[in-house]
């Protein structure tokens, strides 16, 4: 039980606490923005908390009247410059995330999508490569 759960407990009476639904026993959510920047660290965390909003957890994308393309098995990820540019500057319906993510976060998430979801472009992307495209 982390600090945040204790904070919640302090607000609830003992009786209310006893009546907490089961979901309230799971890990407490954390704010993920500080000073206007997203705080998740590591490729997987950035993917699951940002990219998955549109490309979905399984990176298979989705379609209604509009479409989010799949990043799974995506041959256009072969050249790292393409996803780096999109994440920094956006493209059409995809917003620019250059001002929300630091270079190392972008490097990590691009490396992550290029090495997961049936993509196998092993060479890791570096923060310097990202900086060069800003």
């Amino acid at each position: 039980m982390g600090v945040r759960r204790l904070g919640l407990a302090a607000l609830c009476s003992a009786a209310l606490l006893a009546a907490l639904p089961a979901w309230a026993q799971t890990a407490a959510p954390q704010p993920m923005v500080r000073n206007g920047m997203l705080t998740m660290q590591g490729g997987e965390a950035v993917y699951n908390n940002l990219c998955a909003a549109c490309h979905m957890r399984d990176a298979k994308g989705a379609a209604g009247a509009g479409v989010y393309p799949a990043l799974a098995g995506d041959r256009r990820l072969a050249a790292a410059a393409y996803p780096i540019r999109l994440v920094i500057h956006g493209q059409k319906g995809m917003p620019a995330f250059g001002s929300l993510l630091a270079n190392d976060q972008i490097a990590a998430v691009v490396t992550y999508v290029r090495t997961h979801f049936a993509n196998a472009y092993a060479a890791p992307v570096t923060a310097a490569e990202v900086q060069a495209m800003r």
Partner: protein
Amino acid sequence: MTGDAGAPSRRDLLSMIGVVAGSTAMYMAMYELGYAQATSFKGPAKLSTPPTGTSVLILGAGVAGMVAALEMRDAGYKVQVLEYQDRPGGRNWSLYGGDTFTELGGATQHVGFDPGLYLNPGPWRIPYHHQGILHYAQRTGVEMEPFVQTNFNAYVHSMTGYGGKPRRYREVQADYQGHVAELLGKCAQQGALDQKVSKEEREILLESLREWGALDKNYDYVKGMTSSNRRGFDLDPGGGLTGAPRPSEPDALGDVLSARLWTAMSQMSDHMHQSSIFQPKGGMGMIGKAMGRELGPLIRYNSKIIDIHQDDRGVTVTYVDTKTGGPPRTATAQWCVCTIPLPVLGQIPMTVGAPLKAAIDHMAYTPSLKVGLQFKRRFWEQDEQIYGGITYTDMPNVSIGYPNHGYFSKGKGVVLGAYVGTPECYTWAAKPPEERIKDALYWGSKIHPQYMSEYDCGVAVAWHRVPWVLGCKSQWTEASRAEHYDNLAAIDGRIVLAGEHVSYMAGWQEGSVTSATDAIKRLHQRVMSA
């Protein structure tokens, strides 16, 4: 126009027009003479009769598409509207008990709200000066009631300020204003403002600061009847032997400043949020429904547009019937008004010139999320005397909106448990709906501990997951306006774009109305001169 003996004064003129032509003419004349300003809506587009049989296809049955359809039909155009969804309104939309909503990715939510209760996932308020959308609401018989923008008894809350405890808006507002008035008064008294104000002005300024800041006779902001009349009492005045009031203790200036709650306190001062503000009775979606009813069979629902083609004879739109399937069908007309949101439109093949295509393609929409929570009882009213309005917090749920209707009801109530437009919104959208609801409950319970025992059911709409718009609203910068805006609005051959995105009021229905009005006027001119 003043003091010109012999010539009628402006008021004389107006009353003459009123007598002769009735009040509508007077109202229109007031626009011309500059009295009744404040909106760019100068009344509905009054189109003359087009050549018999002139046809127009309208793409999208949101507010913009339906304004265009109503006015062009009334003028005598042959109108057909194609709409992807099975309902009219577009982003003008309310969710009621019994509704289902399937988002991109496939998660389906079944709304379990009680009768009469709803969530407005999109628009929820209409300021008094948005005369365009108010006109169409009146025209279609939609009743309005007040929207409570500012409730002095709702909370402002910071995770770090005031030890993380919520404060009533009235307390923070009074303390902030009181301390600032006291500081400024001290400066004035010590002569620090003598460069800026004369001696007489200084006295007037001091007098006004005492009034504005609820200061005592020495220009101090202190505990007492004067300050408590603003910030509220520890024990409110009452009757009889127990009626003596107990004033409250203002918080120190340092506490007020370090809580950094002024953003929450300034929204009411924005032109878009100044009272009076309205909401349609029964949910914002009432407007879309009423306009859709008015258009009846002119709207073809479940029609997903997949191609837009034009040549010098007309426009051909290809669409798929999402209910019955089958091969793509086509609809043709001489002219076309397209209101499809840009992130979707950019993915549809379309014969238009490069400048319009570039304008369509440059735009991604902003993030936004709303979570509606139904509670078993209206504890915010019963326990905390909060009747409508909004609580602001710097937690990730950003705000809590209380229902502005059904006050004092003994039944359930639906609260807007999160309204997030910050970058944090992506992290909410990335979670399944039930986790968004859990998070809204978690954060909200820090302000209302009753959440835990009173929660009943909920629904969460993240706008980047909404299949027919891919985001909340357009976003323009000075640079993008300069580069693309005029191209986006210009008629391209036989096609003109309209919608929230073709306006200077991004994210307001008034932008859709004024954009559609402007677009069909220009298109009509083109038709009449063709």
